């Protein structure tokens, strides 16, 4: 049985309640929600709403401002394409995942917008806030940045950045793929718009994502189509969530996501974070001084990620050897080339260890023992 430490890519295993809920959804909630009006359709719509309500409560929003997507990437794409304005500037950090950097690049490459990447790597909160303070202005149509790097775990002071954006009337969206379910995050406190994966720290199924609006900043929709409302008009009903949810939604995924969020609520965000950070700290303490390169810094506030490489070995080879020995970790660029550029780990990347609530100290100690053995063999 493989020991899974690749939870920053997607959490595994999922809580049993999530799998049971998805099974039941397929079995019982078979009508198309919001479309048909018969009892099965209405019961399914009610289930979708229950998840909306649970997620809204989790992020301090109104249920109608919770929009379901396929993943965090589609959420971020909707927000970026829906808020850019020709001739203006989009501001990001230099730790962004490709789910932010690729759509922003795509808009900027033809000169439609100017892309300003702020260097936040290894900077203090005050330095980062000062950098945003100096660069966010009237020429900006959007500030979008990660809450925590999926490569280094560095957490950005988004609450303070949001205050700057709000004061200057610039929409602020955050990518919480690595922090939802690990840090408390509220709309209107941390950002205007929150984009999250459903399948990571929220323990929902893969193929689920969300964005949460504050009801004031409304991006243009990325897709148009049937919503089950105002169907005579070619113009969709321009209120969330219908505005953004064209086409049939992923009902089993959405129902499963509700049980994932309930699981997080039951365990408590602070307990989950404490457990995962303790496991990262344990890896650090056990491996520091070994024949490996450690990139993770011990920040005061950090997402549960530990990044390393074996000396004199490519990260892909290291990942393969660890896989052969029963450990699932992720090697490579982690879809975040700018962060690896800042770290100096291009073009190979590095190996990422990312625990979940299901991992134990004993698993981590086994992992450290194996890593040490591999590194010693490389030294010989």
């Amino acid at each position, binding site marked *: 049985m493989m020991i899974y430490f690749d939870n920053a890519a997607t959490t595994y295993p999922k809580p049993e309640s999530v799998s049971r809920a998805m099974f039941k959804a397929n079995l019982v909630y078979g009508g198309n929600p919001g479309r048909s009006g018969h009892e099965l359709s209405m019961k399914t719509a009610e289930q979708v709403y229950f998840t909306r309500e649970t997620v809204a409560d989790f992020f301090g929003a109104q249920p*109608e401002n919770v929009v379901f997507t396929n993943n965090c990437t589609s959420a971020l794409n909707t927000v970026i394409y829906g808020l850019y304005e020709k001739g203006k500037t989009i501001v990001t950090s230099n730790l962004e995942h490709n789910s932010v950097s690729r759509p922003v690049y795509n808009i900027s490459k033809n000169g439609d917008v100017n892309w300003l990447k702020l260097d936040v790597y290894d900077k203090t909160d005050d330095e980062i806030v000062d950098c945003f303070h100096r660069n966010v202005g009237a020429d900006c149509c959007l500030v979008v940045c990660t809450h925590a790097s999926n490569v280094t775990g560095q957490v950005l002071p988004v609450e303070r950045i949001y205050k700057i954006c709000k004061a200057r009337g610039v929409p602020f969206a955050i990518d919480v793929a690595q922090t939802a379910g690990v840090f408390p995050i509220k709309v209107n406190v941390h950002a205007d718009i929150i984009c999250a994966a459903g399948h990571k720290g929220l323990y929902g199924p893969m193929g689920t994502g969300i964005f949460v609006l504050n009801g004031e900043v409304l991006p243009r929709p990325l897709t148009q189509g049937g919503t089950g409302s105002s169907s005579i008009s070619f113009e969709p009903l321009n209120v969330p969530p219908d505005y953004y949810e064209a086409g049939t939604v992923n009902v089993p995924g959405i129902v499963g996501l509700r049980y994932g969020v309930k699981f997080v609520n039951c365990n408590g965000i602070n307990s989950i974070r404490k457990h995962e950070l303790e496991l990262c700290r344990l890896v650090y303490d056990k491996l520091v001084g070994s024949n490996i390169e450690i990139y993770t810094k011990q920040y005061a506030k950090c997402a549960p990620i530990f990044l390393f490489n074996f000396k004199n070995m490519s990260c892909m080879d290291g990942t393969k050897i660890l896989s052969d020995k029963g450990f699932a970790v992720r090697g490579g660029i982690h879809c975040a080339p700018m962060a690896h550029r800042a770290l100096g780990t291009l073009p190979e990347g590095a190996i990422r260890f990312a625990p979940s609530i299901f991992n134990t100290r004993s698993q981590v100690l086994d992992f450290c023992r194996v890593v040490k053995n591999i590194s010693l063999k490389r030294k010989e």
Partner: protein
Amino acid sequence: MNRVLKLDCVLLDISSITMAEKAKRILKSNGIRSEIRRTGKGLDGCGYQLKIMGDTLKARALLSNSGVSVHGVSPCKRQ
């Protein structure tokens, strides 16, 4: 002169299924029974109606205070 007609059963036109579900939950938590129906009388075609049974004036006030937009009101038909 405007007259407020107090009925014990009304149909409220609501634009989306999400807002209809929200309305239903608000009313339920205040002890007012309601059910959602699909209708062709929405803003531009398909929409939803909330059939409210009970104190309909209180129901409308609750929905208004919660930001649920009601686009039309009609009495329930006798069956």
